[in-house]
């Protein structure tokens, strides 16, 4: 397995006593594209802001490439690029000057690198125009360009295809794949477009109400013909009970710091048996979901059930 590019442990942020991110544990491996999903208000942007040092966590740890990103923020961010929410630039400056100056804040910024990324996002022809004249889509592309300067090893992208036309969306997806495949860049992608996540991500983490509820490989999630997701009150005991009946299981997420969601090797026809077995043994079953072929279905089911 590749080394860890980004890891959070027990990450928590409270506003007025309410935890918007609660004991969040994430592990992103180097060279992968990690999809970070969750409904509006789930705590995705707050998590990204904490990783980037914009928001100060109340508890927990953040490590970027093995470096403590809270106590050594400057060092940790040296090879990190990001676009958080709508891209904002200095409107009176040209695209090229924005990139030169912003890139320079991360260390030496080569003019050649600026030209490369401008070419990459197809803004080289308008590079000397003031950003104030740019459309939203052009600013979005410039946002991606600035995240690539200097040679970032980890890129955090928050809804990077927002405001892009279909060609722009396709190009951005290809760009992400290329960065990951050819340059070994790790991408942490937050998106509402589940089809996009399905197409480009290697792994996904789903959060709701500030807690991770599921984390798995996309490939595994999409090929789950014989898998049930079961959320229980006592996961350790539930695993023992399931194992005794020959159903293999493993933790698939966490709530309140404990792993409560189990991924059980059993098809949907036996869902009732699994449920009966656990309930009769005194284990509370909060939800039971047959794995589906679409990430969207899984996402909607998981987050809607928790909302109820």
């Amino acid at each position, binding site marked *: 397995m590749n080394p860890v590019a980004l890891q959070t442990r027990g990450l928590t942020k409270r506003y007025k006593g309410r935890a918007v991110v609660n004991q969040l544990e994430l592990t992103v491996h180097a060279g992968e594209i990690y999809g970070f999903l969750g409904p509006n208000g789930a705590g995705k942007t707050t998590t990204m802001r904490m990783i980037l040092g914009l928001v100060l966590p109340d508890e927990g740890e953040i490590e970027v490439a093995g470096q403590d990103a809270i106590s050594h923020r400057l060092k940790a*961010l040296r090879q990190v690029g990001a676009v958080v929410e709508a891209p904002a630039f200095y409107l009176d400056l040209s695209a090229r000057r924005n990139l030169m100056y912003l890139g320079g804040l991360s260390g030496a910024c080569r003019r050649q690198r600026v030209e490369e990324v401008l070419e990459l996002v197809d803004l080289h022809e308008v590079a000397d125009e003031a950003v104030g004249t740019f459309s939203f889509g052009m600013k979005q592309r410039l946002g991606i360009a600035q995240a690539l300067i200097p040679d970032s090893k980890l890129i955090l992208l928050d809804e990077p295809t927002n405001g892009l036309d279909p060609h722009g969306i396709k190009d951005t997806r290809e760009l992400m794949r290329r960065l990951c495949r050819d340059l070994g860049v790790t991408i942490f992608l937050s998106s509402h477009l589940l089809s996009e996540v399905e197409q480009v991500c290697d792994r996904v983490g789903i959060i709701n109400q500030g807690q991770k509820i599921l984390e798995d490989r996309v490939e595994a999630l999409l090929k789950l013909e014989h898998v049930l997701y079961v959320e229980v009150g006592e996961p350790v005991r539930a695993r023992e009970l399931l194992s005794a009946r020959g159903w293999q299981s493993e933790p698939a997420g966490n709530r309140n710091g404990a792993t409560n969601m189990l991924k059980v090797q059993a098809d949907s026809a036996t869902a009732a048996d699994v449920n009966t077995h656990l309930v009769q043994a005194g284990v509370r079953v909060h939800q039971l979901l047959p794995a589906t072929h679409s990430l969207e279905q899984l996402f909607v089911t998981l987050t809607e059930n928790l909302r109820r």
Partner: protein
Amino acid sequence: MKHLLQFELIKCFNRKRAAVSFLLVVGFVAMILVGLWLQDRRHGQRRVADATFSDYLNAPMCVLVAESPGLFLFLPILAAIMGASQVAGEWQAGTLRTMMIRPVSRGGVLLAKFAVLGVYLLLLVAWLFSLTFLMGWAWFGKLGSLIVPQVILGQGNGFIILPADIAIHRLLFSYLLAAVSLWSLASLGLLFGVILEQTATAAMAALGVYFISHIISATGLFTELQRYLPTHHWNWWNRVYVSAIPWPDLLQHGLWIAAYTVACLGLSIGLFLRKDIHS
């Protein structure tokens, strides 16, 4: 830090706000000169000290006449707005977020912004001085002695006449002290910008403190409080026109101004370090 300073300078002087402030100074100076020309036409032969008003109407006088309204009222407004907009403006535009996701320290960013405010205000004051001096010289065609009404020093209704050889030095010194006062006021704007996150509200708060302090000074009330008021010290620039400069007095004012400025900057940095950036 060098790159950060360079970036802040570029941002500051590329803003329309900066260009507008320099253009406003042109309009202000033109207005002062037209006013002096009209005064000369109507009352040019009026006796002032040992000569007439026309005799004393020269470039140094133009600079002095522009100083009071310019440094009491006009430039403080610009200083407060520029100070307030340094953080709050970027907060509102979202560019603070773009900048702070880079490996730059929050303290470093505020120090760079503060330094750039100093450069901007020094240039603005220098622009007011040089423009008034050169345009006054071109229009009235004279240099010479400077006549200073003692009323601006709070010393009655007489006049102090500074010979030509020291007049320019005193004017330059006075404008330099005024730039320091404006920098201090701008640091108050910076502090309110960090607290309030909105340029207009922060500028209003800084100007509120400035004018309330002036009003309290003018009313003669709260005599015990007056020595602690910032405007009591920020107006030190008019103390240099007396024949013998009161150096101990200036030093004391300077220390108070330094204390105010350091307190505002320190508080700004302290608050900014603990602030979540949600812009």
